[in-house]
């Protein structure tokens, strides 16, 4: 029998852009789960798409991509269609982008069966229902008549997996299928993929930027960088004994939960609940019964944040962890006054925040107390303004500096966050994600805030870049005596940066205290689930993963 997927020396050159793949070779055998790991721009998606004969237009190709002996580089349209219908299926990152929002789940699932396999409608429905049950969705019959918007992201990704499995593919291609999902949801999906892959003896190629995820799912791994395979081999040996520097860097940059309290900042570990030596100090930020409700047009009231109580002392670092809908972003937006509280008190630097939108003068004063860095570095900078001027504008506003003086201050600050003066005149689009986030940081710091809110500020970055930006934040925090409020879904990032921690769920704080204590001995059930859901390598004990599996879905 010919190999399931065999890519040999695949080179892809896009005129005007340059070579994107430089001689990639890899193979996937029947019944094998293989990970393709790399950072953005490494060519991992291109490689995977090549298996389906999906190449960007005008690209120059060489090498072979053979799926059961069919070379997709030279195959005809008909052959490729047959391949996509019968042999290979693909699952994408964003399940919502891949499904027609005005058609029901049932329509979506049965379409291929009716049109291509020629099955009668009733039988198609039966098979679709069975498949939905098999991927762990309850009430499958009701689900068939529901629309995509009625389903959560995790449920929808299960529907997509069901659709992919309905064709009984021999090869399953997964392009970051869990990246858009919460960590507890991810754990369930990963388990499902692993079970299905083994039960059906499918070959699976799993693309991810997350090394831990690859280790929790795949037997072999290819590490891709700049369109080249840097290293490959059994996942375990690549992880435990990496041969190449790049793999080592990647592994080192991948955040892991540190239960020793993150940075050794000693007295910092003052309980957020008021215990510890720092309790007597006046907190910089204090919330008492802080709530935010939104009223929908239907009259329904959504409680985004429900009675939050916490204190953050000056110079401290507080992590706020939760999944989507936990209210963590609402909390961040309340602190920087982008939202107004419905109830409760918010005190910053001893002065209580009025429960109404701020006036222009008040906002300007507040800007010197608190600043924020947002998640998406591609949206949080003004696309038209050169970065040097963007930072200089803040100096002119807050320090009353003249044009020339402000430009000099801007240059100094940008250099301090690692943006060389050669990039001073560059517009944001000419910068990488990491560089943009450094600029965003500089802009926020130019106002000289005492409190810096980071709202998922490193989530959109590659791991190696994330590690650098986190390092920068730590460094600046020490030098400037900043107080940090770090909002994130990633426990590992928090464990590294923050000495205190809030765990949030559905608008409520479920647990708070010293990070080290919470991570090593979580008290709340949900905190335990959150910690247990983190991907665990296949060769580590599987017991904790089972706990995560039980609560997912």
């Amino acid at each position, binding site marked *: 029998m010919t190999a399931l997927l065999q890519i040999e020396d695949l080179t892809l050159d896009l005129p005007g852009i340059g070579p994107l793949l430089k001689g990639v070779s890899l193979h996937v055998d029947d019944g094998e789960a293989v990970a393709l790991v790399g950072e953005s721009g490494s060519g991992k998606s291109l490689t995977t798409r090549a298996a389906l004969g999906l190449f960007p237009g005008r690209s120059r190709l060489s090498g072979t991509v053979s799926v059961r002996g069919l070379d997709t580089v030279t195959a005809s349209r008909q052959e490729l269609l047959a391949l996509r219908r019968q042999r290979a299926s693909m699952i994408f990152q964003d399940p919502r982008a891949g499904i027609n929002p005005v058609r029901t789940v049932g329509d979506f699932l049965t379409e291929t069966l009716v049109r291509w396999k020629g099955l009668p409608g009733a039988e198609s429905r039966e098979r679709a229902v069975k498949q939905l049950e098999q991927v762990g969705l309850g009430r499958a019959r009701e689900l068939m008549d529901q629309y995509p918007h009625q389903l959560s992201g995790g449920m929808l990704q299960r529907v997509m997996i069901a659709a992919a499995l309905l064709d009984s593919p021999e090869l399953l291609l997964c392009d970051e299928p869990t990246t858009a999902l919460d960590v507890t949801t991810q754990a369930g999906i990963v388990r499902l993929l692993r079970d299905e892959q083994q039960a059906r003896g499918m070959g699976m190629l799993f693309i991810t930027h997350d090394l831990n995820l690859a280790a929790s799912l795949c037997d072999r791994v290819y590490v891709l960088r700049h369109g080249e395979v840097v290293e490959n081999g059994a996942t375990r040996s690549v992880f435990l004994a990496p041969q190449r520097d790049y793999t080592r860097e990647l592994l080192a940059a991948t955040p892991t939960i540190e239960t020793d309290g993150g940075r050794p900042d000693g007295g910092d570990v003052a309980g957020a609940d008021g215990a510890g030596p720092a309790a007597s100090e006046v907190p910089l930020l204090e919330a008492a019964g802080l709530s935010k409700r939104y009223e929908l047009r239907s009259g329904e009231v959504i409680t985004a944040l429900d009675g939050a109580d916490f204190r953050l002392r000056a110079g401290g670092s507080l992590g706020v962890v939760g999944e989507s809908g936990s209210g963590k972003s609402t909390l961040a937006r309340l602190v*920087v*006054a*982008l939202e107004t509280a419905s109830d409760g008190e918010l005190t910053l630097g001893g002065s209580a925040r009025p429960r109404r939108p701020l006036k*222009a003068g008040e*906002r*300007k*004063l*507040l*800007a*010197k107390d*608190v*600043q*924020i860095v*947002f*998640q*998406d570095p591609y*949206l*949080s*900078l*003004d*696309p*038209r*303004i050169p970065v040097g001027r963007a930072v200089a*504008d*803040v100096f002119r*506003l*807050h320090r009353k500096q003249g044009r020339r003086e402000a430009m000099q201050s801007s240059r100094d600050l940008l250099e301090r966050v690692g943006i060389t003066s050669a990039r001073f005149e560059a517009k944001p689009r*000419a910068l990488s994600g990491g560089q943009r986030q450094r600029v*965003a940081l500089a*802009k*926020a710091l130019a*106002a000289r805030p005492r409190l810096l809110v980071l709202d998922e500020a490193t989530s959109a970055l590659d791991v190696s870049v994330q590690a650098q930006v986190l390092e920068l934040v730590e460094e600046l925090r020490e030098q400037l005596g900043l107080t940090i409020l770090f909002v994130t879904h990633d426990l590992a990032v928090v464990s590294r940066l923050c000495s205190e921690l809030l765990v949030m769920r559905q608008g409520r704080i479920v647990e708070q205290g010293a990070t080290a204590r919470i991570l090593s001995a979580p008290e709340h059930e949900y905190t335990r689930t959150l910690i247990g859901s983190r991907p665990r390598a296949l060769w580590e004990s599987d017991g904790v993963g089972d706990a995560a599996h039980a609560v997912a879905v």
Partner: protein
Amino acid sequence: MTLTLQLPQTGIRRYGSLLSPLAWAALLVSAAVVLAALLAPALAPYDPDYVDLNNVLAGPNAQHLLGTDALGRDLLSRIMFGGRTALLGPTIVVLGSTAAGLLLGLAAGWSDGWTGKVLGRVFDLLFSFPALLLAMLSIALFGKGLFAPILAMTIAYVPYVARLTQGLVVAERTRPYVQAYRVLGFRTPWVVLGRVMPNLIPTVGAQSALNFGYVLADLAALSFIGLGVQPPTSDWGAMIEESRGALLGGYVLPAFWPAFVVVLVVVAVNVIGEELSDRIGGKLS
């Protein structure tokens, strides 16, 4: 060792690489027409109003490249001079409606409260009046000529720009970069006029380019029915109207040339406008 530098292309070269051949052709046509109109006094072979009764309704020949009309006036010269009034009107209308529409749209989009809602309804109200009807009302008030229709058209085209701007602003104000400006303490007028507005101008400009074509056709129609530019001033719409008699007598060219130029310019401007909005749309997505 070779060092390859990938520098972002700047200025016109960047646009040039993105414009389709069709858009380039449209750009050339528009430029040629505008230049011909601007330089008419120097380039036109004859006085556009010079009547030569010995040479009426002549076909294209060496003396008169496009022929002459029923009064023996040179058609090429009249089209070149006619372009001055025909293009001036839409230019004023587009500039005026863009400026007013931008400001009103920004105001409507930025305020959550009553201002936005009321302005939105006012735009809807204006939308419900056809531009030509407004123009005729205005002519009834202010008399025939160029002023009345230009005023009316400007008002009629404000909602096209304002509605678009309002929608863009509503989307823009929730963007992180705008929120960052708020958190940094910049005042709203500075953010709106100094930072948000310039980011909208390419998109609004594309809409205005399309509007130019519509206004040109509308104003030509007004001149054609005798409410716009008055004889003897040469104007494309008026030229078509003046050639009605000749047309009935079987002489097509005196009406054809001005009509052809109107169509040419409207199509060219539309192509450019479409290209601009496609390019912007592509960049945003």
